[in-house]
């Protein structure tokens, strides 16, 4: 079990940063071609995600314990949450693009 202050950062690193890095390493040329898709995904995720988080804080759906986070909080929102949103969008976008490439290649072969 990680130390309390680094729990969120370690979780983000293990379950989002490492898989994202592996995906980028495996198919960086494809991803660089579609960098606009990544930018759009991350921007939209940040807009919706942050609005959702502030709604959650207000309605007390979820929260973060005092000792969860090493980074400072902005209006009650730990900065780790921003990292969570960015890296989640990155992993989903990368996987979707890979799935699309596989689908298109498969269709080409069928023709």
């Amino acid at each position, binding site marked *: 079990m990680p130390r309390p202050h680094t729990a969120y950062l370690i979780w983000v690193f293990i379950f989002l940063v490492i898989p994202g890095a592996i995906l980028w390493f495996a198919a960086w040329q494809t991803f660089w071609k579609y960098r606009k898709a990544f930018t759009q995904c991350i921007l939209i995720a940040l807009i919706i995600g942050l609005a959702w988080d502030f*709604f959650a804080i207000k309605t007390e759906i*979820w929260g973060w314990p005092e000792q*969860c986070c090493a980074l400072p909080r902005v209006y009650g929102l730990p900065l780790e949450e921003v990292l969570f949103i960015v890296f989640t*969008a990155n992993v*989903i976008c990368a996987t979707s693009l890979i*799935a699309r490439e596989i689908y298109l290649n498969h269709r080409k072969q069928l023709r």
Partner: protein
Amino acid sequence: MKLGQLTYIFSIFLFSGTFVLAKWHKDKKILKKYELVILLVILFFLPFTAFDYFALKWGAWFYNPQRTLDIKLSAEIETYLFAVGVTCSMAIVAIASAVRVDRSLKVKKKQIRMKPKLKLRRAFGDSGATRR
């Protein structure tokens, strides 16, 4: 069950559901072709929602039992719906954007192919005799 316990589900439909509907309505023509891909991406990510268990155990975040159904399947049951909504939203944006990038690249390629023809026309003149 109290009405307040539906707050998490309500927020999922409010933030993720409305976005998916709006985006789908906007890019229906593009996305219809990739329905299967989007579905597969959602199914791929669904089991990973269980990693929420570690975040809850390590104390990274917590859910308020008065705002959730308080049914746990390694994570709160609503989290699976959250994962479906978020994955669907991001997959839709990624695919629609990728299709647009491909289209713009095709247009650029066409323009590059057209350029030598234009140069020839300029060099030899676009007179009626050459046209015949």
